[in-house]
């Protein structure tokens, strides 16, 4: 599977993503934000970090960069686009995903492990996944998902909710919601389920000496589904 990781000025999880993708067998290329064309690939990744310092609103300025037009075209033609953390924020700012990511409810940056439940397996990302509840890592200041009531209805009706914060058993009470996200949303699809935005960082969970290795399950599953 061929992947492209976009580097925006201020991206800081681009290398981590490159390492994770290669470790799991993806052929990855790094793409500079100022380029106009995407290389031929099957998956485009918008990595985490602080594109343009996250000034104004997270992801807003990256949403205006040159490469984004091609990313939107790629997504509209059915290509897989994955946005992690800042990448998720960029996807909402470009309109590829609905809603916005606001500042965390308790106003602090949060860096810790969380559990998330896979809500929809009818898609390239989670089809056949072995575990329903993944332990992943979050590190963000603006992960508090919000959208209007009407939008939420649409999202629900289309099964667009990909991941929700929960505890080890899958229970999703408020106390397991780290940032105040609406309906505990940790990851979200577009209507066609080819665009996925998620706050957790699977690329930080790829061997047992790190915070855990459930991230590997995610990457292995995605590449297997592709083949």
């Amino acid at each position, binding site marked *: 599977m061929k992947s492209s990781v976009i580097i925006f000025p201020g991206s800081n999880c681009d290398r981590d993503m490159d390492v994770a993708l290669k470790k799991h067998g993806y052929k990855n290329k790094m793409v500079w934000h100022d380029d106009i064309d995407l290389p031929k690939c099957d998956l485009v990744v918008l990595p985490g970090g602080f594109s343009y310092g996250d000034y*104004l*609103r997270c992801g*807003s*300025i990256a949403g*205006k960069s040159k490469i984004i037009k091609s990313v939107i075209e790629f997504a509209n033609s059915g290509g897989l686009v994955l946005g992690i953390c800042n990448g998720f924020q960029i996807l909402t*700012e470009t309109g590829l995903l*609905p*809603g*916005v990511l*606001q*500042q*965390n*409810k*308790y*106003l602090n940056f949060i860096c810790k492990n969380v559990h998330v439940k896979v809500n929809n397996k009818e898609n390239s990302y989670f089809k056949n996944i072995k575990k329903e509840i993944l332990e992943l890592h979050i590190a963000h200041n603006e992960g*508090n998902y*919000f*959208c*209007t009531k009407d939008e939420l209805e649409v999202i629900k009706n289309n099964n667009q909710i990909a991941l929700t914060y929960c505890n080890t058993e899958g229970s999703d009470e408020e106390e397991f919601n780290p940032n*105040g996200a609406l309906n505990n949303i940790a990851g979200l699809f577009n209507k066609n389920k080819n665009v996925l935005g998620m706050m957790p960082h699977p690329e930080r969970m790829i061997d047992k000496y790190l915070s855990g290795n459930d991230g590997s399950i995610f990457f292995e599953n995605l590449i297997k589904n592709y083949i």
Partner: protein
Amino acid sequence: MKVKVIVTLKNGVLDPQGKAIQQTLNGMGFVDVKDVRQGKYFDIEVNETDENKAKFKIDEMCKKLLANLVIEDYKIL
């Protein structure tokens, strides 16, 4: 000329930061403070002398970049 813009959260959108400020103010003894909402303010200098033209441009900037209309409103002063 200089144009001033204010971007605020839409009614109904939660403003945790404003809330925190309100609580802090209450805690500091300003017990009369009932509500605080925080927004953004921009001072924009444009090379344009015609006020209407300038405001028209700024309006576009607000829609395209400065405000996220999902949750925010803007006002050009």
